[in-house]
């Protein structure tokens, strides 16, 4: 669109051009969208009521009695359970990643902008949190407040904060080294305004990548917690819970275990692919590729 007044730019080409969104993003994004759609549909429609038990038709194989993926040992429709479980997965992921991003992003920018002794303090605190396993944190929370979805979301969210702080701080340091930051300071902009208008928009790409990767971790953690009995209650459909319940029948009817396992794997792979693909696009360290 520019009316070229002078010769071509003299510096290196802007990094935004020449870096395209790869096929990984489309595959990962497609899986994510699929899980999301299934989760949303489950609010309005599932083939059967996911809570409806029919012991006369327990452990039916796929297709038997109109059950697309068969039934579990209580005779519940597996397809319906999976759909309702997608809802739980998405809900837990959104809240957990939301907590992590909303707390971690400002702290990361803060760590990049404050004097060194303060940022050292923040980053060592981050290291300590990072050294604390997420699952252990969740178990501790469950021990204090009892298990449940809220506890797991909180624990997973808090455990994901440090990685956000690290990624955002690293990105913010790169941004802060650009001339438009001192330019804004010379123009009289205060630190908060600089953080909001200049730093945040330029690290948002990294935040999105981190959110996608954290989402995958959150799905796994939620499934793990439910499996251990500290996550979703028995009345909530959850992939982790399905895994746990299918344990009894693993020897005789392994398919009942395969379905939720496949669903978890698919969702995790989807978010990871999306995150990796987006990283190729946004990560400053990969610039110029």
């Amino acid at each position, binding site marked *: *669109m520019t009316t070229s007044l002078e010769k071509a730019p003299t510096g290196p080409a802007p990094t935004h051009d020449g870096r395209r969104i790869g096929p990984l993003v489309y595959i990962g994004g497609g899986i994510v969208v699929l899980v999301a759609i299934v989760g949303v549909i489950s609010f309005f429609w599932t083939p059967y009521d996911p809570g409806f038990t029919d012991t006369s038709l327990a452990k039916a194989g796929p297709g038997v009695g109109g059950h697309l993926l068969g039934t579990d040992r209580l005779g519940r429709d597996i397809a319906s359970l999976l759909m309702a479980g997608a809802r739980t997965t998405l809900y837990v992921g959104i809240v957990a990643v939301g907590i992590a991003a909303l707390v971690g992003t400002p702290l990361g920018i803060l760590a990049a902008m404050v004097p060194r002794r303060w940022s050292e303090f923040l980053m060592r605190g981050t290291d300590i949190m990072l050294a604390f396993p997420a699952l252990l944190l969740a178990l501790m929370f469950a021990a204090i407040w009892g298990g449940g979805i809220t506890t797991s979301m909180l624990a997973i969210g808090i455990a994901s904060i440090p990685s956000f702080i690290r990624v955002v701080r690293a990105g913010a340091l790169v941004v802060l080294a650009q001339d438009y930051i001192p330019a804004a300071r*010379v123009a009289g902009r205060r630190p908060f305004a600089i953080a909001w208008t200049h730093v945040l928009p330029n690290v948002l790409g990294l935040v999105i990548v981190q959110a996608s990767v954290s989402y995958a971790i959150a799905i796994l953690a939620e499934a793990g917690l439910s499996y251990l009995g500290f996550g979703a209650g028995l009345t909530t459909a959850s992939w982790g819970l399905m895994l746990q319940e299918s344990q009894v029948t693993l020897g005789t009817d392994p398919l009942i275990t395969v379905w939720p396992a496949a669903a978890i794997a698919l969702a995790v792979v989807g978010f990871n692919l999306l995150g990796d693909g987006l990283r190729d696009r946004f990560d400053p360290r990969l610039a110029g590729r």
Partner: protein
Amino acid sequence: MSSPAVTTKSASDALLEVRSLGISAGGTTLVSDVALQLRRGERVGLIGASGSGKSLTCMAIAGLLPEGLRTTGEVTLDGETGNLLQATERSLARIRGARTGMVFQEPMTALNPTMRIGPQVAEAMRQHGVGKAEARRRTQELLAAVDLPEPATIARAYPHQLSGGQRQRVVLSIALANGPDLLICDEPTTALDVTVQAKVLELIESRLEASGAALLFVSHDLAVVAQVCDRVAVMYQGRIVEQGSVLEVLADPQHEHTRQLIRNADLGGGGR
């Protein structure tokens, strides 16, 4: 080339006063005993090889020194603002932008890639109490004043859509947005190719004539300084080794390092 500055030589005319400025990192002295005075409307060049401390001096004046550097001495603007070296970020924020503007070396990184040009130019004015509509109108004027064609289109563009020269014009328009008394240019044309460089220099000169702002021009290129400035200060190893009018210094350099710079410079386009 040297413009007859509209000044009487009274002491109250001093705009920028730098007294015995010293900068050190840890135990290492980077800049010492720098004294510099700019009168209103005066154009002073600060030259020296890379590592001579000219950029640090200029950063200290703008209050942009990185954390961990210790400063001594005094920098005052207009005699009334107190020592800027000791000023808090809060009080600096009020002085900056309104009283000083700055143009940076690298036009590729001097603009926020995620913001359209218009808001970036308006930002400086909005900060100092100009209304939204007024800022938008003046943005167009400013962009037109730095010879950018179709200011309305440029204002809607993102930085990566502009060429290096165009970006540096935008940076200049931001620096001049609030009609500052002092314009600081840190190697503003080093990253541009020669033809663009000449145009941007002409533009800086014409904008200064229009606004009456003083200029502190940092460069390693004597030829560029000779074109734009009235006075020149030569820095070498963290000190000002020679200071005087451009003509004097060029005709009769006193310091060996100045002679070296003159030998290396491409003055008047003849030879190397």
